């Protein structure tokens, strides 16, 4: 079996002063070993919350639906992620078999500890390495991600490194425990384009070398096109389209995915007008009934759009879309 992680019926709500807020609504997907999945969506789409659920990392006011199930397949057998409670059990999804890279590398390193101390600490937590072994491996990993003079850099603090370097150090730290699944949450968003290109290249090399699965969360379809094998598109907590990267980008089926691609300024055609997706993303407190996108959709096909949530339909073996256009046309 080649499946690395299997997410079924994930519904996630947060208890707030204004009532229960739904962040993720009945999302199911799987990721194979060595596969790079792009998880695309705008702010409030639930992409980061979904990723954090894989590490059971959401805040204590999170409420998971009873039928939600996340299974991680490790060498020691399957792990039911949502049933993990004790810190010792959670280690496997928090830095053990699953690692995460965050968007803001400055905020993810402790400012008053050297990079090395943080890298060594987590290695000792996840393995029975001695301090010296952990240090050697950390220097080696920093070197692997292209940090020159790694033996010296390891004793520096996060503020002494530039943005690109910090993100490299973050990647080195996340990979040093040899995770099976790497979750990268907007890892290049805070970087300049030239540095972004370097980091993307580095991540691709590392996937090949370590053969791990990656969930690459981003709002940038260009970055997805350059990195992912498959794409999942989320909107207001729903998974609305999924498929191989070429198909989703070249022949998007969902009106939202189509709108997202049309809204991108294209360098090839400077005369093309910019076409925004009309309206604003609704507040999660006022989730539209039926299809969550119908308030902004230009292709509403009937009353069903505002009353019935569309089921995911298979366009072909790999490409799926949740939209009434296709259910009523009988595709």
């Amino acid at each position: 079996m080649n499946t690395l992680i299997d997410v079924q019926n994930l519904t996630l709500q947060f208890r707030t002063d204004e009532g229960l807020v739904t962040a993720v609504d009945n999302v199911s997907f799987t990721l194979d070993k060595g596969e790079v999945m792009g998880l695309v969506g705008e702010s409030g789409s639930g992409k980061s919350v979904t990723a954090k659920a894989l590490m059971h990392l959401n805040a204590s006011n999170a409420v998971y639906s009873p039928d939600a199930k996340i299974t991680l397949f490790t060498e020691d057998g399957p792990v039911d992620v949502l049933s993990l409670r004790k810190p010792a059990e959670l280690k496997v999804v928090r830095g053990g078999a699953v690692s995460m890279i965050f968007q803001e590398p400055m905020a993810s390193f402790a400012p008053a500890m050297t990079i090395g101390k943080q890298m060594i600490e987590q290695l000792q937590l996840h393995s029975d390495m001695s301090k010296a072994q952990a240090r050697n491996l950390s220097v080696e990993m920093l070197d692997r991600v292209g940090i020159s003079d790694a033996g010296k850099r390891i004793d520096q603090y996060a503020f002494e490194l530039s943005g690109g370097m910090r993100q490299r150090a973050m990647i080195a730290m996340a990979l040093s425990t040899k995770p099976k699944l790497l979750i990268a949450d907007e890892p290049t968003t805070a970087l300049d384009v030239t540095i972004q290109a370097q980091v993307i290249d580095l991540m691709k090399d590392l996937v090949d070398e370590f053969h791990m699965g990656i969930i690459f969360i981003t709002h940038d379809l260009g970055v997805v096109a350059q990195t992912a094998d498959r794409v999942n598109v989320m909107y207001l907590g729903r998974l609305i389209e999924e498929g191989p990267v070429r198909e989703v980008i070249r022949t998007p089926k969902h009106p939202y995915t189509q709108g997202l691609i049309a809204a991108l300024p294209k360098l090839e055609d400077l005369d093309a007008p910019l076409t925004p997706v009309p309206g604003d993303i609704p507040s999660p407190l006022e989730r539209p009934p039926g299809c969550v996108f119908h308030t902004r959709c230009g292709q509403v096909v009937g009353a069903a759009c505002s009353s019935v949530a569309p089921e995911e339909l298979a366009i072909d073996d790999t490409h799926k879309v949740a939209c009434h256009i296709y259910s009523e046309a009988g595709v």
Partner: protein
Amino acid sequence: MTDILIRADGLSVGFPIGGGIFRKDVLKAVNNVSVSIEKGSFFGLVGESGSGKTTLGRALLKAVPITEGHARYSDGEVDLDIASLEGPALKDYRKRAQLIFQDPYAALSPRMTVRDIIAEPLEVMGITRTREETDARVREIAAKCRLNLEHLRRFPHAFSGGQRQRISIARALVSGPQFIVADESVAALDVSIQADVLNLLKQIQSEMGLTFMFISHDLSVVAHTCDHVAVMYLGRLVETAPTRQLFAGPRHPYTRALFSAIPSLDPDDRGKAQKLTGEIPSPTNQPSGCKFHTRCPFAVDQCRAEEPQLEGDGSGHEVSCHRWKELMETVPA
């Protein structure tokens, strides 16, 4: 010949950074920059973080002191020397030149209603005399930014990012400025909303005949909105040209690398980008000669020794590179 609204000549901005009693270290964020911005144009300024683009924008608004060089603002009514503005003349300039910030979540006071946020510049600058006059002006500008009366009574937290940015735009416009610096004004917005705000800025600019300086790190956004683009690197202008000309034939190796680093939407383009190695050097420790030589794949000894100057070809396209002509012929973009 169209009128020039803003003309900067040899403009530098330095910040003191420690040193001792006898020695003063200065970080030159903007170094000897000359630009002319035509009246009624949409002028784009691009570069990586640390290139000095924000500092240049602020210097032109006199939000940071200009340490060397000159900058003039002339809109037909007044002709001002920006560097030496003070007192009433500076107050007058504040009405004429405004700034739109990057982050619409941080730029709006959470304790003020949208009406008060937009009205504040009018009251502070003493532009309107009565409350009725203020309200009328606020409503007029709000309508231009597609905000209705209902919106004006609410507080900023009730709005989405795109709506908040429209409020920021309304506030910048309310004093009737001629010149607006938009600093990364769509960078914090989602893609589906970004196009909407860009279209709004363009529409306002053409309707009201405003001049924009649009600062952005996103080249594709700049390509679609600006008439003229200037590329900055480490405090210097390295290339400036009309937008179409620049995107059709970038001349500076840095501009070319920037273009090439934009992730393509075509999954089959993987690995085709020409990669720039290294990172932008620290402005406190600048390389000799051409500032870009440490990362330039085409650098030769001359580049390390001698700093190139901007040179034009009469078409408005200027570039500062010793080897651009040769590279245009030998290295395909």
